[in-house]
């Protein structure tokens, strides 16, 4: 129904039962882009939930191999968790700096985020390499297959995030705080925070629940 038809009916509706909504037109591009990326992130979380479900089903199928409590090192997981949490915070600081167009704090926040992400990846890589060298690779048991695919998939996302982070720093360096660069930065911040949310599930379900049993 067109606006004029609705306006014409206003006299027949003295008690304003049918409210006339002033349509503001399409949403700004920033909202549309971020909303689309939000839907992608949710589908990514659905994909992770499949890995979580597979892990939950296979966690006891150790095929006489090691159980979770025998191979997990709580101290490493704590360091990884703190790294990712702090990197989420510094990523937030960098996105605030990008919004107010402050280059120094943007570069500083992104650089710290990058270093923390790399520390996380280094610890995770060392853990995986150590397990494989002891003969507990993903082919050892169904439990280890599920463990490596779940945690490894998260690690791959963090690696992709670090590459994206470096791209964003380079784009701000080369192009400045243009509207399209700021939109990408917003999507990156959403991505990085979502990775931290998934890691909360990983360390709780895999390392803490599996480590105690």
């Amino acid at each position, binding site marked *: 129904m067109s606006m004029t038809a609705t306006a014409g009916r206003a006299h027949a509706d003295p008690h304003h039962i049918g409210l006339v909504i002033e*349509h503001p037109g399409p949403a700004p591009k920033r909202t549309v882009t971020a909303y689309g990326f939000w839907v992608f992130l949710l589908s990514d979380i659905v994909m992770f939930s499949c890995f979580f479900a597979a892990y939950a089903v296979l966690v006891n199928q150790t095929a006489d191999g090691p159980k979770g409590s025998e191979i997990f090192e709580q101290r490493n997981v704590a360091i990884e968790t703190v790294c990712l949490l702090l990197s989420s915070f510094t990523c937030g600081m960098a996105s605030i700096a990008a919004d107010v167009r402050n280059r120094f704090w943007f570069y500083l926040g992104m650089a710290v985020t990058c270093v923390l992400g790399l520390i996380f990846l280094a610890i995770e890589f060392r853990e995986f390499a150590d397990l494989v060298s002891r003969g507990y690779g993903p082919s050892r048991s169904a439990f280890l297959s599920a463990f490596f695919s779940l945690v490894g998939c998260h690690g791959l996302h963090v690696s992709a995030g670090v590459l994206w982070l470096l791209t964003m720093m380079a784009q701000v360096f080369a192009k400045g705080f243009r509207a399209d660069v700021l939109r990408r930065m917003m999507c990156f911040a959403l991505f990085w925070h979502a990775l931290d949310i998934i890691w909360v599930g990983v360390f709780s379900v895999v390392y803490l629940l599996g480590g105690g049993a």
Partner: protein
Amino acid sequence: MSDQTHMPAGHDLAPGDEEQHSVGERVLGYVVGLGLALILTATSFFIAGTDLVWQPSIPVALIVLAIAQMGVHLVFFLHITTGPDNTNNVLALAFGLLVVFLVVGGTVWIMSHLNQNMPPMDDFIRMHS
């Protein structure tokens, strides 16, 4: 036109965006989120390795703490609120969570019953060898 009730429908807010705040307020929001998340994380790690609480309650406590921390991240880092400008974001999130619970809950439910209804695998192999 004067007797019409206009409802200026404001624009939606992008996920991750906040309403207009000063830089100080925004930084404070992240600091509060970081503090809460650190407390919840520390509690999780403490509870997982302690003998001070009733042991069977530990898995439930860990899951509750994890969900609480995810909520903290959503509110303070992703700025998902219950405001009218966030309706689309919340609806998408609700649908995502529905699918997550269907996938995880359904899988665990079905597979546990599958194990109950099957003869133990060791007997099965012995019967056929």
